[in-house]
């Protein structure tokens, strides 16, 4: 699901062009009231042209149909990108067979017949037939079909990695899976309908905007419908019966130009492409509503590990006790960690190498006996038997208390300088590991959480956008505070349990804020469900994936920030084009009103009445003026398709700044652009003798 299609993909364009004609079906048009008015107008104008043919009427008719086609094209383009992906997904789904377990025996059934609660067996090579939970066994699974990531992932029963997705393939071992989804409602099904936009429901904002657009349309229908009455009075007052051309094509032209066709024609394309942008970043939203809510988020709850810090602690310093050199400590630490395959252990080896040029010796150093970490000793280390005159060595590293117990049991003592170093490190938010050789404490290794590069800047941007970040961690408050300060989050929750998280979300919501969070474990599920935007990691449990309203296929917790940005961009695009569309009306009046009423109250023998003064653009003739306005109105839809699909330029700055910028571009720009545009079309029409 990595980006596949560009805006100018010929196949996509071809399909969209075809679709834009198919969408002329009245049942499709009916769903968009603004464009439906254009549709009715285009039909009436076509009929009028048949009855009273003229080149002008024909051109108006054609451009009205173009207006509709352009709007359809925008929608088809937005849908088209998702459709290609959906087709691939669908192909994967159809031919799967499941090995259903019935009373301990296997039965072959079609994947579509599985219901929630059924259990199935999958072995290496099998396609997992439906979403479910591993209840027995462990297997590696290739999930590239949905994530695009080809490295296999481990799925096992129990714990936080038990969820499997229909359509993915088991590549080793055997698992028993309990199906958790009903037929037709699997993850894959939902994914298909999301990318296709088939079951796309209108979001609350879209509904509200729709109401506004319909009302504006009604308002302008009224303005146009009352014109014949006003005109009849004016014609009789001027003694010029029939001087105003109020034919159907002219009235329809005026109406179509005034109603908000630009935003009306692009509205659904904007919505679909917003979801498409999410899909391209490998995030699946269960509803467009969730995407919109993402733009409204006030608070982000972010797990420390993996989001703010790299997953693991890293050795950052060696602090020897009095009488021991740092190099000696580093050497001992490295020796003790050679066989330690944990990331912490490896980082000690690397640090010693970097700081003191101590090359990582072979793990298989002769005679060395490595002592692995156990829950009882809570230490690890290495023993060297006495050999070639060298004395026996026994090196241990571990938590301060464990090492203290250890050296004291050997008759040694825990030096004060070591205790102080341990305390200092804790204060700084690090984790101390004490190293001892025999009964002698050598010093302390400082392990630190490493904050991800660039994350501080991102939080700063979020703050400018008015979003507060809260770091959630199981660490003690001291450690948490230190990391929070380093990462630049606004607040943190230390020693947080899932219940604390849930409580915090509820509290923020009571105060009127919208909260987003990520999570993967089953115990995250209540909080994910409570959050306004809950992003579940794809690697997580089925419970978490069901509870959230988005799933991140990359399982990258930082993605939440991008999701917020996409949500905001979606709303901004909608607002900007609405403002643009409404602002356009001023210029259109100045094109069409003088064209309509220009001859009214003209002195006998002249066609130039006083209202020609409104023709500020000096358009060539009444026909060219009306035609130019209609053509501009149609072309502006095409011109804005790329913008509506890509979203307007987005910057992480405060609302006041965004507002000023967008008002200038889309408000003032929307006021002025059509004056230039209509004049230009008029000049072209005259140049090529179309009027």
């Amino acid at each position, binding site marked *: 699901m990595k980006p596949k299609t560009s805006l100018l993909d010929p196949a996509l364009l071809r399909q969209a062009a075809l679709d834009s004609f198919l969408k002329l079906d009245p049942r499709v048009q009916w769903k968009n009231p603004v464009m439906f008015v254009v549709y009715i107008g285009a039909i009436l104008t076509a009929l009028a042209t048949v009855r009273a043919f003229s080149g002008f009427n024909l051109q108006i008719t054609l451009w009205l149909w173009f207006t509709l086609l352009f709007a359809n094209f925008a929608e088809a383009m937005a849908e088209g990108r998702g459709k290609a992906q959906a087709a691939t997904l669908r192909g994967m789904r159809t031919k799967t067979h499941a090995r259903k377990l019935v009373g301990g025996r296997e039965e072959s059934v079609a994947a579509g017949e599985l219901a929630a609660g059924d259990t199935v067996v999958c072995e290496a090579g099998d396609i997992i037939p439906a979403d479910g939970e591993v209840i027995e066994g462990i297997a590696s699974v290739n999930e590239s079909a949905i994530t695009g990531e080809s490295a296999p992932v481990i799925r096992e029963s129990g714990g936080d990695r038990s969820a499997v997705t229909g359509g993915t393939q088991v590549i080793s071992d055997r698992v028993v899976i309990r199906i958790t989804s009903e037929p037709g409602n699997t993850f894959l099904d939902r994914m298909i309908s999301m990318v296709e936009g088939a079951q796309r429901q209108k979001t609350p904002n879209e509904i509200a905007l729709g109401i506004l657009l319909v*009302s504006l349309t009604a308002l302008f229908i009224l303005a146009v419908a009352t014109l014949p009455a006003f005109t009849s009075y004016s014609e009789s007052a001027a003694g010029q019966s029939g001087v105003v051309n109020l034919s159907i094509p002219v009235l329809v032209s005026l109406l179509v130009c005034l109603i908000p066709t630009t935003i009306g024609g692009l509205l659904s394309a904007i919505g679909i492409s917003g979801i498409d942008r999410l899909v391209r970043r490998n995030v699946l939203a269960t509803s467009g509503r969730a995407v919109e809510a993402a733009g409204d988020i006030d608070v982000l709850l972010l797990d420390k590990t993996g989001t703010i810090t790299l997953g693991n602690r890293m050795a950052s310093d060696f602090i020897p006790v009095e009488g021991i050199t740092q190099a000696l400590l580093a050497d001992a630490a490295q020796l003790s960690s050679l066989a330690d395959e944990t990331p912490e252990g490896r980082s000690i080896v690397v640090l010693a190498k970097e700081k003191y040029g101590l090359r990582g010796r072979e793990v298989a150093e002769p005679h060395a006996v490595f002592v692995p970490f156990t829950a009882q000793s809570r230490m690890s280390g290495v023993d060297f038997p006495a050999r070639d005159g060298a004395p026996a060595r026994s090196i241990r590293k571990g938590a301060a208390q464990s090492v203290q117990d250890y050296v004291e049991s050997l008759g040694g003592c825990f030096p004060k300088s070591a205790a102080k170093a341990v305390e200092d490190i804790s204060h700084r938010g690090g984790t101390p590991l004490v190293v001892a050789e025999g009964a002698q404490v050598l010093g302390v290794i400082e392990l630190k959480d490493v904050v991800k590069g660039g994350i501080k800047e991102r939080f700063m941007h979020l703050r400018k956008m008015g979003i507060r970040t809260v770091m959630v961690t199981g660490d003690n408050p001291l450690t948490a505070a230190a990391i929070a300060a380093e990462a630049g989050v606004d607040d943190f929750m230390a020693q947080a349990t899932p219940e604390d998280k849930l409580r915090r979300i509820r509290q923020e919501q009571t105060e009127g804020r919208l909260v987003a969070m990520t999570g993967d474990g089953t115990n995250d599920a209540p909080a994910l469900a409570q959050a306004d935007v809950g992003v579940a990691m794809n690697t997580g449990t089925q419970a978490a994936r069901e509870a959230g309203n988005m799933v991140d296929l990359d399982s990258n917790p930082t993605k939440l920030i991008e999701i917020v940005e996409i949500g905001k961009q979606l709303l901004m695009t909608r607002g900007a084009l609405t403002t643009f569309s409404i602002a356009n009306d001023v210029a259109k009046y100045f094109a069409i009103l003088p064209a309509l009423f220009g001859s009214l109250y003209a002195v006998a023998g002249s066609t130039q009445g006083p209202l020609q003064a409104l023709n500020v653009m000096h358009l060539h003739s009444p026909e060219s003026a009306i035609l130019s306005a209609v053509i501009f109105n149609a072309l502006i839809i095409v011109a804005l398709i790329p913008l509506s699909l890509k979203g307007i330029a987005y910057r992480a700055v405060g609302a006041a700044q965004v507002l000023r910028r967008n008002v200038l571009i889309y408000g003032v720009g929307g006021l002025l652009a059509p004056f230039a545009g209509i004049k230009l079309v008029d000049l072209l029409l005259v140049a090529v003798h179309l009027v």
Partner: protein
Amino acid sequence: MNQRDLIQLALFLGALLAVTPLLGKWMAGVLSGEKTLPLLKWVEGLIYRVSGIDPQREMSWQRYLGAVLAFNVLGILLVLVAEMTQAWLPFNPQHLPNLPFPLALGTAVSFVTNTNWQAYSGEQTMSYGTQMWALCVQNFLSAATGIAVAVALIRGLTRRSSQTLGNFWADVTRSTLYILLPLSAIFAVVLAGQGVVQTLAPYADVTTVEGAQQTLPLGPAASQIAIKQLGTNGGGFFGQNSAHPFENPTPLTNFLEIFAIFAIPAGLTYTFGLMSGNRRQGWALFGAMLVLFVAGFAIAWPAELAHNPATGLTASMEGKEARFGVMNSVLFATVTTDTSCGAVNAMHDSFSPIAGMVAMVNMMLGEVVFGGVGSGLYGILIFAILTVFIAGLMVGRTPEYLGKKIEAREITWSVVTVLVPAVAILGATAVACVTKAGVSSVANPGPHGFSEILYAFTSMVANNGSAFAGLNANTDFYNYLSALVIAVGRFAGIIPVLAIAGSLGAKKIAPPSAGTFPTDSPTFAVLLIGVILIVGALTFFPALSLGPVVEHLLAQAGRTF
């Protein structure tokens, strides 16, 4: 444009800026139940006891609306009865007859809705009694209704997850007793001191200096003029309204009468700021209103002074009182049409086409440039909600106003307040244009006749009540149609506003952050002005171009009809 005019304008704006916070603070105190006045407090308690009202009892928006409607319908019935029985009631020294039903109905609806559209001349039609207990009372109560609805909307905007909006009876009683009554009493005394008549004596027969016999109409005028201006009612005691020397005798009364129109609506913006906990919110609205007012005046004044090729005159005094002159006439006209007042001190019908158009556009905007008492504030708050919705999406959040999310329900009701008045104005004008009954009332041929019809329905729907007097509106057609469109105009405001208040009141308040659309900034005021002009007035552009615009262009070419 001489120096004295400019000094007076400066005084006017200075007084407006000074009084807005003072009055606004007092009103906020009264409306939150904290401020009372000594003697009147006892009256308030008495009113509650007699009518069995518990002022503490909170109302849902539906109950609040029910109370408003019941109160207004009862008001219409009482005025109707008073008008149609005045011949048999006391205080009728001139023995004026009962009013016919169409005129009585039109007048009753008009006064109860704060419109004060008058298809009659007071001194020839209304007895002292009718003026006092029917019309004057409604001058108070219609203004108090406006304040009550506005404060209900403020409560909806500022309360957190609340199902109720306050108590209508308490709001109306307090607004009347502690705001309208004291101000009117003071103002009436000042007016009487300047020569506005206040008597129950019959009309005076006098011999003029030329030796002719003349009857001078008298009456309890000062008390009614005060609330007519302060309550943005505008219904004159006499037919000539504030052009009549007994209603508006001196330059001082003229200045005060203009100022009184703006005082309460301007003060209410400050009240709003205080009650919303951020005074800048109120000043943003005030700023937008001020800009629109100044812009209108800045267009109308020069237009009125300009040379008119059709008449060959400059600074036309046609239809103006010599004691006021051009500037004071234009200022009065701008102020009275910015608000829903509709009192006049000059004949708007005689204004230059551009000045007449400014008056019309002011009303078409929905009476939100300070606007009617209460109705101006709730009107502009609806525009603020629309502005937040249209432009607010551009900051990338679901639009919020004062932390309340603006969603489908609010938008639906908000557009009703824009759509329905437009339907009423354009629809009624169109009907009048194509029916004999409509066209036959027009006194002037040519585009001005169209302007007269358009002005009439705009004024009615906007609850203004001023008129291009050339139109004879005392016909069955205009009386019935006026009663209808006036009521539509008023309740297309009140019903949606209370529905929105109810819906917003039940919502949570999102605390502001750097990502919130700022609604207390100059940027917002500019946007608000843009939306008011584009959404509020763009619909009327074609109609205006066939009326005052073409009339102006024809006059420039020296053509008349």
